């Protein structure tokens, strides 16, 4: 009996999962599942518990890329430190930059925080603007649309299905956002600090002010001088919330919290980073609840 179930499972997967889609991060993966439905099988390359800038290029990722029909990447330089050699060594012509099965979502996003001057003297700055856009729930429909359009292009036969999935999803999401935005109105004007500029899209969307970062410069570990400066700034501004991601050390945040009587909240940067953020809705709800309450 078990065997039969397994066999049918394998068969149905083989029959219906016509497109193999790899996404670099889990939020993109979750959106792809919404739009692609049963017609795609999604593989997420980078674990959401790790720093998205430094995904370990394990050889097993090569075998995942080798068979992909479509590679969906975040873009904006976020994958610069790990993805290029994987693409070079996976030997898959479908997903080369410029090929039909290559999609850079950042091309559909209005990137914020574009630096005026780019030099590594300022740390490992994101030269193309802040690539951490997946924390803004209002960008989800834009991302979904870009993905749907690409799927329609790759799998013309099922274009209607993707369009229908997209419409249904977008409608539901707009509905969800109404309630979401209403809840967050009370949070406008709140002041926070964060470790890296991971949450700027969300904060900007809801009028929450980020008055500083724990890292002195992007990609540089905290220094006592900078931490003291940040402490003073937090005191001056009455900041009581520190946004901590899951992958950086938490000592500095805890130290600061103690000094200024603030609280440290761990905010997921991608779907599934924190337990209880495994669906898109749970992910965005958790961000809102933890920052706002």
């Amino acid at each position: 009996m078990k065997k039969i179930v397994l066999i049918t499972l394998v068969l149905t997967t083989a029959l219906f999962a016509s497109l193999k889609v790899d996404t670099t991060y889990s939020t993109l993966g979750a959106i792809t599942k919404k739009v692609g439905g049963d017609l795609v099988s999604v593989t997420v390359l980078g674990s959401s518990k790790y720093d998205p800038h430094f995904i370990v290029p394990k050889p097993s990722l090569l075998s995942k890329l080798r068979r992909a029909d479509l590679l969906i990447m975040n873009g904006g330089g976020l994958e610069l430190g790990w993805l290029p050699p994987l693409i070079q060594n996976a030997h898959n012509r479908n997903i080369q930059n410029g090929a039909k099965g290559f999609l850079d979502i950042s091309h559909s996003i209005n990137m914020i925080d574009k630096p005026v001057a780019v030099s590594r003297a300022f740390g490992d700055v994101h030269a193309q603007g802040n690539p951490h856009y997946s924390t803004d729930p209002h960008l989800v429909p834009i991302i979904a649309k870009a993905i749907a359009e690409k799927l329609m292009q790759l799998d013309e036969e099922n274009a209607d299905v993707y369009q229908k999935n997209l419409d249904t999803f977008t409608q539901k999401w707009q509905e969800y956002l109404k309630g979401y935005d209403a809840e967050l109105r009370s949070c406008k004007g709140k002041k926070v600090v964060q470790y890296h500029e991971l949450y700027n899209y969300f904060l900007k969307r809801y009028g929450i002010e980020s008055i500083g970062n724990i890292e002195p410069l992007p990609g540089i570990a905290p220094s006592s001088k900078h931490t003291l400066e940040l402490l003073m700034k937090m005191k001056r501004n009455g900041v009581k919330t520190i946004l901590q991601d899951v992958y950086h050390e938490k000592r500095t945040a805890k130290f600061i919290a103690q000094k200024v009587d603030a609280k440290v909240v761990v905010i997921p940067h991608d779907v599934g980073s924190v337990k209880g953020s495994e669906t898109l809705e749970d992910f965005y709800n958790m961000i809102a609840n933890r920052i706002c309450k």
Partner: protein
Amino acid sequence: MQKKLLLSLFAFTSLMANSETEALKEQLQSQQETTQKLLSRVEMLEAQQQSSTNTSASFSQNAYLPDIAMILNMSAVYRDVKNSDYANYQVPGFVNNDLTTDDDNAELPFNANRGFNLNYAEFAVHSVVDPYFEAFAYLHMHPSELEVDEAFVTTTSLPAGLRIKAGKFKSAFGRLNEKHQHSWSFDEQALIYKSLFGPDAISDAGVQLQWVAPTDTYIMAGVEAFQGTNDMSFGYEDPNLFVGYLKSSVDIGDDLSILGGVSAAHGKTVTKENSNIYGVDLTMREQLGSYSALVWQSEYLQRDKDVNASRDSQAGLYTQIVYQYNNNYSTGIRYDRITKNEIDLSSYAGINTDNLERYTAMVEYKPFPMSRLRLNYSHDRSKIIDGARQDINTVMLTLNIAAGAHGAHSY
């Protein structure tokens, strides 16, 4: 434009000045903020407009410039052996700097001097050529010469998981052969690689075909044909070197990954006799966090080389553990050993040629992903100097800088 905004703001302010509510004041405050934002936006847009009108030179091709990185590698070395003696060291049965005249043996390009060394300035250039090819070049500028370390093209559009590489490149034999000096975990070359191939390992003009299997488990197979100019192991005047390998990797859970490989190389020596080299390698990596990992890597190489119709059989291994504590610090230890040396060693009569080995330890500090300071200590028991076995202790502080295009991190 700015004036108008200010004027309307002023009018707005005077109109409202007499009304009494705090709420209005607050509204005004936000109005002012909005105006301020608008003003700065206007300024920004104006600035953008100006700059965008005069940047596009008629024949500018800047957008097509290749990615360029500059890597500098330098060191300060203390060694308890004089430079002139060190330059003549021998590894019995393998390296014989005294007797040979060929360049491969005589070369001591990295950290050769007690004192200060600029090992090289490397220019790494990469560019997409067209929809079918990518091109790479790694140029080493040594203090007195320019060396093309690698320069090759790879295909990007072959079907069925195939890729061809052609040019001068490092063979993917084993685990270490392909790695550049600055990406080694220790500053000195693994003893068995140094002993069999010299500092550049198998790096030659040739062509490579690699295939990645369409399987859940990573399986990669490759074959290569080279000119075979490395006369420490090969060196016949015609193309003579063929390399093949099979690599595979599995993950156990999210954080433990294992990579293993078997490799073989078949070539002809200067005297057109067979030289076969076999290798096995195993790497286990446990990820302890985004910036923390424990990596255990080992490799065993064996060479069977025919010399005057008799067969020399030699082998060696290294095993190393590197612990990356966080994004700034890591540390590691390595053990090197020649395990087999079945060769005519009569010229070393009276000298102990057994137990050729080396112990190495290092601590490295990376203030930033692009720069690395490393303190490297080795106790080397594999060398003969001036007709006597001599242990060598070396302490070196090396600085490696990678500026420019972002080099991706390798596994």
